[in-house]
């Protein structure tokens, strides 16, 4: 291996002593978190959607410019409850992209429906009007449209499509909390949108999620479904109650994170700029640009691997992981995994053609601008030593 730098995968010392993740892990000011916590210490209400939860719902409704917000203990269960409340009765399928969140089909299964996978648009990497249309049929109960990691799907087009066919539309907007589409804030499209506040997301609530909607009746129903146990609440006749309330500690954390969200985006912007500048000179790697017009949070760094890149995606990821750079594939198509329940898995030519081309590089609070410099350097070295590295694999 003369001339080849000592990669950790082949016995060298890892570049980073501490792992560099892709998750945000945002740490708000502790005093702010403690300040909110004092409120629930004062009224001694620790859960069952107390004052902090209500405050968070009001603040998030302002943030997304929507009528109502319903908190949940996770984005996952927020999704399940929303789908279960909105899906058309007497129909069995929910359309969702296979190239998306790795538990999308599980959420649909818990809601009691059959996932029907659809393809993505090669430009946005997300569902589009045509890909959804191709999956529509007389069994379709709901469309679950997911925004991609970078930029937006055609939210307006899909909202219009749902209206045209009379099918409810829910957006999986977990990665799109800060964004806007056609000048409208994400949160107000479709019948409802669902967000996660897991610590790897833009807003860190330790764990948590919420649903945004302009449909006040839906918000009331969600309250009844979640808070059936409280004296003043009842689930509507046909709704299936399920206790998935957000506790007050998690609400306090969410409020502290929300207070600092604009400052956070400024920091992400600087790191994103470092990546853009650094990747410009690397043949075969191209960053997926955040569109200024869509009010990006600049948080996620998605890179497209081109023909000029000498290594496969998986080899690249293995090399990086050994260096403690926890880069990962953009999604793995859901129809590639097996499941315990029935799913409709048609051919998805675009997904199949592109899914190996994208990786996500480390970003967020644990990654400094200096770290990004080192990541760019090692990517540059990998790019320049591609054939030697590939031969190492052959002799391995």
């Amino acid at each position, binding site marked *: 291996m003369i001339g080849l730098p000592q990669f950790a995968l082949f016995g060298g010392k890892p570049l980073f002593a501490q792992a560099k993740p892709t998750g945000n892990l945002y740490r708000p000011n502790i005093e702010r978190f403690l300040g909110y916590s004092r409120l629930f210490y004062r009224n001694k209400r620790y859960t069952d959607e107390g004052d902090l939860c209500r405050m968070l719902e009001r603040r998030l409704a302002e943030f997304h410019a929507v009528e109502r917000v319903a908190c949940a203990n996770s984005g996952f269960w927020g999704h399940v409850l929303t789908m279960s409340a909105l899906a058309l009765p007497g129909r069995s399928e929910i359309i969702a992209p296979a190239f998306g969140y790795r*538990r999308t089909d*599980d959420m649909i299964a818990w809601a009691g429906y059959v996932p029907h996978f659809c393809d993505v648009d090669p430009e946005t990497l997300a569902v589009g009007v045509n890909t959804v249309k191709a999956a529509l049929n007389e069994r379709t109960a709901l469309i679950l449209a997911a925004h991609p990691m970078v930029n937006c799907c055609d939210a307006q087009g899909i909202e219009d499509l749902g209206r045209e066919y009379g099918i409810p539309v829910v957006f999986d907007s977990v990665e799109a909390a800060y964004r806007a589409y056609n000048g409208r804030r994400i949160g107000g499209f479709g019948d409802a949108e669902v967000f996660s506040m897991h610590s790897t997301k833009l807003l860190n609530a330790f764990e948590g999620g919420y649903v945004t909607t302009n449909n006040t009746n839906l918000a009331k129903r969600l309250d009844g479904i979640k808070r059936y146990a409280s004296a003043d609440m009842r689930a509507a006749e046909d709704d299936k109650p399920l*206790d998935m309330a957000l*506790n007050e*500690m998690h609400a306090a954390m969410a409020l502290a994170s929300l207070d600092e969200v604009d400052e956070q985006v400024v920091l992400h912007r600087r790191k994103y700029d470092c990546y853009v500048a650094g990747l410009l000179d690397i043949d075969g790697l191209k960053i997926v640009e955040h569109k200024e017009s869509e009010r990006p949070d600049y948080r996620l760094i998605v890179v497209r691997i081109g023909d000029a890149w000498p290594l496969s995606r998986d080899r690249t990821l293995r090399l990086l992981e050994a260096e403690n750079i926890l880069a990962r594939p953009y999604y793995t198509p859901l129809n590639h995994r097996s499941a315990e329940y029935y799913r409709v898995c048609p051919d998805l030519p675009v997904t199949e053609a592109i899914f190996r081309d994208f990786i996500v590089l480390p970003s967020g*609070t644990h990654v400094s601008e200096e770290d990004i410099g080192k990541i760019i350097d090692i990517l540059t070295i990998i790019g320049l030593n591609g054939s030697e590295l590939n031969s190492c694999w052959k002799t391995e």
Partner: protein
Amino acid sequence: MTSEPSLAMFRGTPRFRGLLPVGQYYWPTWERYEQAARDIFLRRFYTSQRFAGPLVIRFQQQLQEFLGVKHVVAVRNAASALMIVTHSLGLRGKVIVPSWASMTTIQSLRWSKCQPVFCDIDPQSQQICLESLRQLLGRGEIEGILGVHLWGNALPVRELEMLAAQYGVALYQDASHAFGCRVNDKAIGTFGRAEAFSFHAANILSTAEGGCITTNDDALAAHCTAMRGDHVSAQVWMQSATARMSEIQAAIGLMMLDDFEQNRERNGQLHRSYERYLSDIPGITILKPSGATVSNFQNFVGVIDPSKFGLTRDNLLAVLQAENIAAERHFHSPGHLAEPYPERLENTEFAMQRTFQLPIGARVTIEQIEQICEVISEAYRHSEFVRSVLTARAVG
């Protein structure tokens, strides 16, 4: 004995300024909470990502030691614990559950695609009625039994285990009320195939919202952990139920576990105070500890005989609520009455009309209990007057 009743329902001024809640609500002091929060912020480990966090792991280990059980899987709430166990046991059909149970317990079966078959209770202990259970098992087609340890007491676990073995069905328990209870030398948490605890703030061990699954079965524990939604690359086919416990929830749980014995003793003192003040009032029977040789005394439950007390349970609740005493019925409606169900369950319906709970836990003192009992005593002495006023109000 005064001739003029001093009850708030006549005078208009409640005896207590703040509401005395039913529910435990033990919680760490501010200083301990602040320290725990600062530690978590320093570690920047907020919740499990690829694997469970250090506090969740420690909490699970300490629970394992405390309960004498091989595996504890900590989860975000009680509903998740029950749904994960039901699913992991492979139950998809008819499961017997007492109708005298919380909606969370019964709904956990519906969300897991099981059909609840309602069982009656024993009139004295209010625990599952073995005779009723035997009859239902005899009809066949039963896949499992979901027992419920009620009121800080225990189910007849030995008999249940024998019945389950005899009929070859899976036995598991909702142990929400029974953390720290023991039957002879064994803790609740070690019986049946698995048990599910709730760490909702109303229970003796609180994580604000939360719960855990306990089992001695290695494979079942692994299945439950994978469903919880930690990094599960080895088992990608598993249906996720996303129910990770956050680090701050675990931090509260660890502190409450340290305080457990102290809180249990306090509950015992409060329990004995009620017994002392209420024992001479005709028509009030205190639900005696049953099944458990060690109780956590987390619930104080009475049964009213209107013919001797002079008032119905709901009359008494109205008197107490006017004093700001949040006495409760606990279960809004037994499971079999919340839906069209073909059978009557006599003991359950009897309990439903006559059972009440009084405040016990962190938010009530012995002096306040003396006052609560005075209210009950006064309601008894003036029962005719109270009844006439309530009737007039109902008509008016």
